[in-house]
């Protein structure tokens, strides 16, 4: 068993706009099971951050407890990290974000961490529209405790143990839409072509960006009768659209045929270009997104891709009207401007 990755990289490794190679975005070697979908998602995050030329020190990774929540160790080894209490990552993220709004927050959670123990926290971070990327690495089971069915496991799905799950599943995408999330997507760990642009768009989004990533558990939930195994997911996947993410600084040169594509300009000026595969669905209409998700579920399909985006969303800081400067950089002088200032305020209220 290798505990270290060799230091050597491809000699012709390209560098991004700020002079980093992909190696600069890697973490330590994964200790998850071989073939775990979570590792593909980590690789997707590494690629997205490399492509976006994000300085690693500008990212904070946050997680709760579980296989998924171990993964921040395996990417962005030069970034900030906080492995919090089970299901409490949203609170820690909220506190961190309020203290320093200048960082990019990537929260990684699992189906247990989000849909069971952390379900309450999840609902509130959604409705507050905290500016972060919240990813659920959704494998439908509790992999770290030997594969019990989780709250997102579909009714009738069978894990390795062989018993069919008798309960109704929680669909996190529907929950997020319902609670007012301003960026909602679903993807599959085995489809990086779709996942990576979604991660980039989610990072560019100002407000709460939620991606539910189906990520097969190779050890406990990759059985023929599971609805979250590699083959089942591949056979039942249905994409809303293909998505291209065009960063703000890049000039748009390719032209698309009229009518086949839709463009959405994000808050920071970057552009999302959809090539729609699904009729009667508008990525900027929350109710059409909810209808599309319901419709697919009815037909036993898994709807993936970007489902809903509100490019004009107002994040928590805008809602509560904080100062532009990160709160953690405010000094005593800023916070206690002294008697003269107090007098002025009091005067204005008389």
């Amino acid at each position, binding site marked *: *068993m*290798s505990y*270290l*990755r*060799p*230091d*050597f*990289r*491809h*000699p*012709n*490794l390209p560098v991004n706009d700020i002079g980093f190679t992909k190696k600069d975005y890697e973490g330590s*070697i*994964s200790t998850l*099971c*071989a*073939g*775990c*979908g979570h*590792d*593909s998602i*980590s*690789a997707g995050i590494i690629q997205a951050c490399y492509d976006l030329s994000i300085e690693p020190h500008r990212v904070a990774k946050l997680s709760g407890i579980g296989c998924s929540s171990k993964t921040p160790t395996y990417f962005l080894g030069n970034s900030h990290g906080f492995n919090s209490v089970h299901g409490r990552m949203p609170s820690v993220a909220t506190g961190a974000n309020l203290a320093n709004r200048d960082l990019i927050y990537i929260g990684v959670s699992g189906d247990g961490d989000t849909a069971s123990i952390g379900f309450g926290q999840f609902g509130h971070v959604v409705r507050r529209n905290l500016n972060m990327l919240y990813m659920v690495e959704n494998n439908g089971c509790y992999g770290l405790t030997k594969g019990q069915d989780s709250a997102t496991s579909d009714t009738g799905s069978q894990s390795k143990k062989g018993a069919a799950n008798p309960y109704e599943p929680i669909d996190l995408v529907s929950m997020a839409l319902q609670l007012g999330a301003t960026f909602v997507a679903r993807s599959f*760990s*085995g489809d*990086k072509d779709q996942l990576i642009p979604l991660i980039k768009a989610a990072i560019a989004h100002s407000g709460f960006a939620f991606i539910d990533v189906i990520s*097969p558990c*190779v*050890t406990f939930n*990759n059985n023929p009768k599971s609805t979250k195994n*590699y*083959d089942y997911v*591949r056979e039942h996947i249905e994409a809303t659209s293909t998505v291209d993410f065009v960063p703000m600084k890049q000039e748009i040169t390719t032209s698309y045929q009229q009518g086949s594509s839709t463009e959405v300009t994000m808050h920071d000026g970057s552009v999302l270009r959809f090539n729609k595969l699904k009729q009667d669905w508008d990525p900027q209409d929350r109710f059409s997104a909810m209808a599309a998700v319901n419709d697919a579920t009815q037909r036993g399909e898994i709807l993936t891709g970007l489902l809903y985006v509100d490019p004009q969303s107002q994040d928590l800081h805008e809602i509560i009207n904080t100062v532009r400067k990160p709160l953690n950089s405010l000094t005593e002088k800023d916070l206690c401007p002294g008697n003269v200032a107090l007098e002025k305020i009091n005067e204005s209220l008389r």
Partner: protein
Amino acid sequence: MKPTDTTNPEYFHKVVDCQYACPAHTPVPEYIRLIAAQNYTAAYMVNWQSNVFPGVLGRTCDRPCEPACRRGRIEDEPVAICRLKRVAADNKKDVKSLMPDIPTEKNGKRIALIGAGPASLTVARDLMPLGYTIDLYDNQKAGGGMMRSQIPSFRLPETVLNEEVDYITDMGVNTHYDCYIDSLKGIVNQGYDAIFVGTGAPRGRDLSTLEGRAQGNSNIHIGIDWLSSVAFGHTEKIGKKVIVLGGGNTAMDCCRTSRRLGGKEVTVIVRSPFEEMKASPWEKEDAKHEGIPFLNNHVPMAFVCEAGKLVAMKFDKVEAHYDKDGNRKLVSTGETPILVECDDVLIAIGQQNSFTWIERDLGLEFNKWDMPVVDPVTFQSTLKQVFFGGDAAFGPENVITAVAQGHQAAVSIDHYCQGKDVAERLAPGTTLVSQKMGIHQWSFDSPVVNDVRYIVPQADISQTLKNRKIEVELGYSLDTALQEAQRCLNCDVQTVFTEKLCIECDACQDICPTDCITFTDKYEQDDLRQNLLAPANNLSQDLYVSEPLKTKRALVKDEDVCLHCGLCAERCPTAAWDMQKFIYNVSHATHATKAGA
């Protein structure tokens, strides 16, 4: 691209860059692992089986394996393959009991070997265990050929050479030393069943037309003849100021030997630019280390003699110009000729074959360059029972090439004597065996170390310059050898992919440190090499393309900078990747090693 046919043994052979580049295809990673396991005897026998002279080659080989070494493509320096070979040779136990049995009852066929150099000795090594009776002829007083006469003792101690020559002659070869064969007809008439000519390229080039050549003759020497004269103790000193003409390895041996025989100001002077000198980089380095300057771009104009004695040489300073096809032309700079004072001049500007002793009416054809017509596969000449090998076959090469040719000639001679098709060759012996020991355990050291190449220690220069017989290189200590051995990437442990097991989780693609692995649906496109995770720009390295997978993608692996670290296989949940050791042995006339080695 079409799916790769890994059942063709040449595919995986090519992945083992060092072995593939070696003319004798010595299984390099295999013996390096044995050295790391401190089994020096087995490491030696793996070498001996393949290249016959591990002790000699571990000191003097031209090392075609090292520029090919994959390590050189991921960092600055390749593994010190050659010097590890020496470690095996220096630290082995007695190997005599491992030598092949020689039948006491002979097969009745008599073979003559002309010249006792590496090619002839290899033929003897391969044919003696089969029961052949062999007569070995050489004009020197002992076997070894150019290994004895041209490689100075400070690079190759006589004891090392004697030992490895003796392993072969002790098999019962009838040696006829101090015996110059001046007529092939004479040998043919003795009724040998086959004759092998391994007489090397014994004639050094001269500058016979250069002004002053005749006048200065007593102080102008042909490099290889002079080295030979030193080796056999006929020459013991040289003048204080020595010019060595030529930029090859013989020139390096000449200048370093001169330093040991009294030469104080020894200068190597070459026509070409420094970068184009033919000498191996390490030999140039060793010469420089002994305080020998090189003058490049100097074309000899004349030997300058005063009162009938050589006093200097005159050179024209030139510049190299290249036409659009890259052909070089040395153009005079027009500066005044440069005068370099000297007492002696050694001419080491190349070697030639000399077949004055072969009668031209025997039915043995010669080509327009006055070289015998020799089949490049069988090494048979147009006179059916006469075979050639080593430098005698296709001109000057090196020891390891001579050995490789000797092996092939031995196969041909055996086939010829047994009435089989001379051109027939058995397929190489190959095995491909999984190295899996447990879920994530391999029976080879898979971790890749970061160590840079270790330097081989040298004896103190104040001692080595005094005595030409003191070996300069001391060889690796066992500790250093172990560390250097760990630098080997185990390229013979192949990454083998089984399509039907793959669930396309991409884990291998994600973990591969050097981005060798790409799952792509564009595998049929011509520009596939540019559409991989990292562009595959090294065209000499193959792409390993799988059959299409379930999602209509194929796995494409660029072999170029694969570290053979085994992470793809460790991260594979279904064992679709496996690490399998590939052993490739060229078939010889005999498998000349006993079991248990």
